[in-house]
């Protein structure tokens, strides 16, 4: 899949998410996932958007054209860390529950709700890990699924790769 991850810092103004999503819709860009939330600066929000398509340059420029957009960064692999949270309800009668719980343990998925015929897991991690878990749960029957949308940050490549700061002489 030709997924690109873009981090957009926007002014925290009413309607700003509508402006961003409307731009994607009218320019014909396809949004795979979108997550939005506050940043350390209460005046700013951060939108992490995963998009398909070849022309990232045009998408980034169109995002910058929105008056409330402050900063747009494409987060490219491998210099990004990304996570997604998911809750998934799996069909699980008494006979299957043991093996389902065993698989969940390997993935560090947490059972957050248990019913007579189902177990609901919470799992966070890289998108690939979530996909693997879903593949394994599929045969039991997935009754419900919710994902948070991907969030991502750039790795701190600069300071990691930089030389150690030299000690100043007194």
């Amino acid at each position, binding site marked *: 899949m030709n997924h690109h991850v873009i981090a957009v810092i*926007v*002014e925290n103004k*009413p*309607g700003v998410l*509508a*402006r961003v999503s*409307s731009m994607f819709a*009218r320019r014909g860009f396809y949004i795979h996932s979108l997550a939005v939330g506050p940043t350390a600066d209460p005046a700013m929000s951060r939108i992490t958007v995963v998009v398909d398509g070849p022309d990232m*340059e*045009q998408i980034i*420029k*169109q995002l*910058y*054209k*929105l*008056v*409330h*957009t*402050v*900063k747009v960064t494409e987060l490219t692999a491998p210099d990004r860390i990304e996570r997604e949270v998911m809750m998934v309800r799996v069909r699980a009668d008494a006979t299957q529950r043991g093996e389902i719980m065993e698989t969940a343990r390997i993935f560090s998925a947490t059972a957050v709700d248990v019913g007579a015929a189902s177990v609901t897991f919470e799992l966070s991690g890289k998108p690939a890990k979530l996909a693997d878990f879903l593949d394994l749960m599929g045969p039991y029957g997935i009754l419900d699924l919710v994902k948070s949308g991907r969030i991502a940050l750039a790795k701190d490549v600069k300071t990691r790769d930089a030389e150690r700061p030299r000690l100043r002489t007194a």
Partner: protein
Amino acid sequence: MTDTISGAQALIRALEEEGVEVIFGVPGGAILPAYDPILDSPIRHVLARHEQGAGHMASGYAHATGRVGVCMATSGPGATNLITPLADAHMDSIPVVAITGQLATTSIGNDAFQEAHTWGISMPCTKHNYLVTDIADIADTVHEAFHLARSGRPGPVLVDIPKDILNARIAYRSAGPLALPGYKPQVNGHPRQVKAAVELIHASERPVLYLGGGVMRAGAAAEALRFAELANLPAVTTLMARGAIPDSHPLCLGMPGMHGNYTAITAMQKADLLIAVGARFDDRVTGDPDSFAPDAKVVHVDVDPAEIGKVRNPEVPIVGDAGAVLRQLIAAMAKRLGDEPAPAREAWRGTLAAWQEAHPLGFVQDEDGPIQQQFVISEIHRLTGGDAVVVAGVGQHQMWASQFWGFERPNTWINSGGAGTMGYAVPAAVGAKMGVPDQTVIAIDGDGCFQMTSQELITAAIEGIPVKVAVMNNNALGMVKQWQRLFYGERFSAVDLTDHTPDFVKLGEAMGCVSFRAEHPADVAPVIEKALAVNDRPVLMEFRCDPDAMVFPMVPAGGSNDIVILSPEDLR
């Protein structure tokens, strides 16, 4: 409550502080509070007959003056009627500020009377828009709206103000400093890119300077001409840039594109370098983009980074204001040339001259035959000495006006290019005349376009705005008919506007205009002379034109610019 004013008074005061001299609008329930303080303001209000007219008036005013045009409407249908002019101004980057009334904040979302989600509806067809929810924000918002409308890539900005905000009271303070951390339009081009552009230009053998509407918006026509002369660059002026350099100038090749002239189209096609300034490689210029100017390297100057690389990847991108970058290019080119003249490029100039000689624009007016629109346009040009601001609608008459007027000055050609809004001419002419009252303003309109917005001639008559309107009556939606003739096997569907109905002369008179009709070629000049003699009232001229005439040259939509249809014979 001493020293407090209403939100409506704050609005009008903020508009005064922005130097607004005229508002084009229509009042209504939600905007009512804003109309009261207009009575006490030096700002003139022009009462349009329809909000669409008010919007295009603001656009025509902005075109003619370079200042921000202002329109005003009420909530619901008032605001939705402004959407077409806003979309139009958005496509052509025209600085317009629209003020709309909204229901009280306590009623928004309840489907109350005359509610529309103006903010949401206008979002995709404005540069930016606001819903004011705090009376303390009015002055800052108006200030920001004007700043956004005229700076960077200009465009329309809408400010929606709820009625309770207009009625609330506040101690007025002028707008504070702008708080737009994400909005910093680039003015100067990157010096390294400017230098790279100069080297490419200097080395080019077949360059074409491709001037677009951005040159007009930046007020950079003089710079464009200076640069063309300094670097010896033949130049095309797009539909939005007619008059950027004079049509009579030896370096001017005229209009390129779908109905451009052969030389302008072919020069771009055969160029080894295009220097695009404030132009956006629109489909009406490029035709099929894959076969457009195949041998050309591209220098692309635009204030909007998103235009660069959108259609064509340039070898040298330069983000910046057209005027600022042209001045940089002039300085850098002057330095590069030193005491030497620019390359003569005799072979290229010779080729261009040969094309111009072989394929001039022309028309035949049979003295007994039906009136040709090109003839009318040429006669108006002759009898005014070309000293007029020309405003067009959209269609055949627009293309002929652009082809045959002969533009010598910038900002004398006003039309709807990007959106192609039929009905643009009459209201835009009214707005233009308000902006430049000392100039003759002539709308060249079609009978289809005219019937969409003719009611604004009532506005012109009552408000004393003496525009002149030439209706080219060919009894048809002419351009659609032309396409049906060429591409739909002459199956004419829904293009017949019928003969004699309405009676345009009676209609003009009913709307308070002096009205004339020309039925034969011999009537044309006398009608124009009579119209030019009237300067205290609007004038309507009806020219009964050839219903079967077609605009050529033509490159069919999506076709390659290698194949220019020069006449109907080329199709056989």
